[in-house]
């Protein structure tokens, strides 16, 4: 092969490499979703079937007695996700009696149980499934709210962690609204 064509060969190899990788999208990971059109998609009632941290089967109906359900999609390897866990636990304890349910949604299990026990988390933790794909923004943490019937309350998912006061304001607006 002529040496001058090496960089072109490199570029070709890279192209083939990436195109091969792109040709078989994994269905169990998030799909390309425009969350600005989520409002239209969210007209359907939200439901899911998955397992919790102990492997027990859970469905949306397990939380349907709550007035407002906060789904907090997080990952153990995400520092801001972990930093808001104690605040979410406090809010859960404070507003549980008023109809708030907080559900943590994870994908990765590396260090998961240690982090949950270290932070004294008592609200349920469930494994993400395809039903949550439409709320994924590409960022963690991402949070959305529904009511007990599965109707999505948040216009667009909340991106990033918030302080205790910020989440309290958001939760109260849904509990009172």
């Amino acid at each position, binding site marked *: 092969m002529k040496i001058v064509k090496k960089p072109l060969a490199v570029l070709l190899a890279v192209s083939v490499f990436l195109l091969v990788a792109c040709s078989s999208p994994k269905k169990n990971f998030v799909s390309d979703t425009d969350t600005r059109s989520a409002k239209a998609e969210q007209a359907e009632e939200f439901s899911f079937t998955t397992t919790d941290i102990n492997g027990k089967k859970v469905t949306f109906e397990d939380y349907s007695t709550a007035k407002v359900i906060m789904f907090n999609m997080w990952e153990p390897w*995400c520092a801001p996700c972990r930093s808001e866990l104690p605040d979410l636990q406090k809010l859960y304890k404070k507003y549980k009696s008023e109809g708030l349910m907080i559900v943590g949604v994870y*994908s990765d299990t590396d260090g998961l149980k240690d982090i949950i026990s270290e932070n004294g988390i008592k609200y349920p933790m469930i494994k993400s499934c395809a039903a949550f794909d439409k709320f994924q923004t590409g960022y963690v943490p991402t949070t959305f709210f529904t009511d007990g019937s599965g109707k999505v309350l948040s216009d667009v998912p909340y991106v990033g962690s918030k302080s205790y006061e910020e989440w309290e304001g958001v939760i109260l607006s849904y509990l009172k609204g």
Partner: protein
Amino acid sequence: MSWLKNENLLTAGLLLTAVILIAAGVAMKQNHQVLAKAVRICLECIGIG
């Protein structure tokens, strides 16, 4: 092969080691870990938030 001389042996050895490492990583599903952390960005990890 005539090109397989001293310094090229080291290069070939490194390339072979790299391929073995990649294969071992794929067998352990480490490529899935790469994907998982590249499709869900922790904002603080890129300095936002």
